[in-house]
């Protein structure tokens, strides 16, 4: 029997999808990049960062949580959408403590790489300068909440892959912050381990493995050599090979 492949159209390009796939799934499988920070292949999509917003007709939707449906005509790589994405990236920058030169993640940070991809030259909005707690209690893992972009990836990775449920997000609005599921609320008293996906998935420098910073010289770090578009598509093909 012949398999009927439904298709969607992204920026004029016809892309096949299978039932149950989101627009993001279908796009990445066809090696079409839709900017994203809170999406990670294999984890339940969340839809919180909104960088993957695409237009279907007059409506905007987040590609990572919107099911692909036959005949959808989707705009993705447009200047209006990329401008909005740049504003959203700037929002994430001003909300937190993102001083790249002083951060161990610099060069390997997805937020930074998103800024590069979208041509962000300044942060545009006034900064919030919120004071958020650092948790250095764990011998091997550091949690700097100031840099957290509330993407929820560590929460999902811990719950879905590590089966540990180490993290949660608490608080409302700009008070939202990452909390640790342990008797003291400290990372040292949780069962997180450096090999856990949750300890390594952080797109920014909020969760870092200690004593590894600045080991790779400038010029050889991930985003010295690649764009986030390349790594975003790469992540997906790695995931596909795992399946």
């Amino acid at each position, binding site marked *: 029997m012949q398999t009927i492949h439904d298709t969607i159209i992204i920026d004029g390009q016809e892309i096949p999808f299978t039932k149950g796939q989101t627009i993001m799934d279908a796009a990445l499988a066809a090696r079409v990049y839709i900017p994203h920070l809170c999406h990670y292949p294999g984890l339940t999509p969340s839809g919180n960062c909104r960088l993957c917003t695409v237009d279907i007709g007059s409506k905007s939707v987040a590609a990572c949580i919107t099911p692909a449906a036959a005949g959808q005509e989707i705009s993705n790589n447009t200047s209006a959408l990329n401008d909005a994405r740049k504003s959203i990236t700037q929002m994430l920058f001003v909300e937190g403590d993102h*001083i790249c*030169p*002083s951060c161990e993640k610099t060069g390997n940070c997805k937020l*930074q790489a998103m*800024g*590069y991809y979208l*041509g962000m*030259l*300044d942060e545009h909005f006034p900064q919030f300068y919120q004071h958020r707690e650092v948790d250095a209690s764990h011998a091997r893992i550091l949690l700097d909440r100031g840099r957290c972009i509330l993407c929820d990836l560590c929460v999902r990775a811990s719950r879905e892959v590590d089966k540990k449920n180490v993290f949660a997000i608490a608080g409302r609005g700009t008070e939202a912050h990452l909390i640790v599921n342990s008797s003291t609320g400290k990372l040292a008293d949780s069962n997180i381990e450096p090999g856990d996906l949750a300890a390594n998935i952080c797109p920014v420098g909020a969760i870092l493995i200690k004593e590894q910073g600045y080991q790779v010289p400038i010029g050889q770090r991930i985003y010295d050599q690649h764009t986030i578009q390349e790594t975003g598509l790469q992540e997906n093909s790695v995931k596909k090979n795992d399946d």
Partner: protein
Amino acid sequence: MTKPRIKIATTSLAGCFGCHMSFLDMDERLVTLFERVEFNCSPFTDIKQCEPCDIGLIEGGVCNAENVQVLRTFRANCTTLIAVGACAINGGVPAMRNYFDLQDCLREVYLTGTGVTNPQIPNDIELPLLLDKVYPVSGVVPIDYYLPGCPPSADEFLQMLEPLLTGKKPLLQKLHLHYD
């Protein structure tokens, strides 16, 4: 007759002069550049008063009242004002104090910190008064262009300046963009 040279002024506010050092990394290319530009008020020349200039390069963020005055003078005198480097653009490393209360910072540095002798918070009127936070320069005056990096490389300075010298709009290539 030689064309009049483009006048450039530079300064460092709450910065480390690293951007200035990086500018000098142009090395032999500086020679060609000087055929077209001259430096006015700048640590390169030691000229203290900013005269009307074509381009102003601002390194560093705004941490005190004096920074505000210098920045305003630059804005008033420079046709094109460029925020250079992480500190000018978002406060950079000096802005790491922004996550703490100013009083706590001063108390620790001048009163209670290790190794403090003769503890007192300086209050001489000769000293510029600190702002509660270190601000990006764009928060105080309008900025025309941004040159990110900590520091921006000599190549990037040239990428920014060369179009301006011929009256064109500079456009940084995304490929060269970096915030560190």
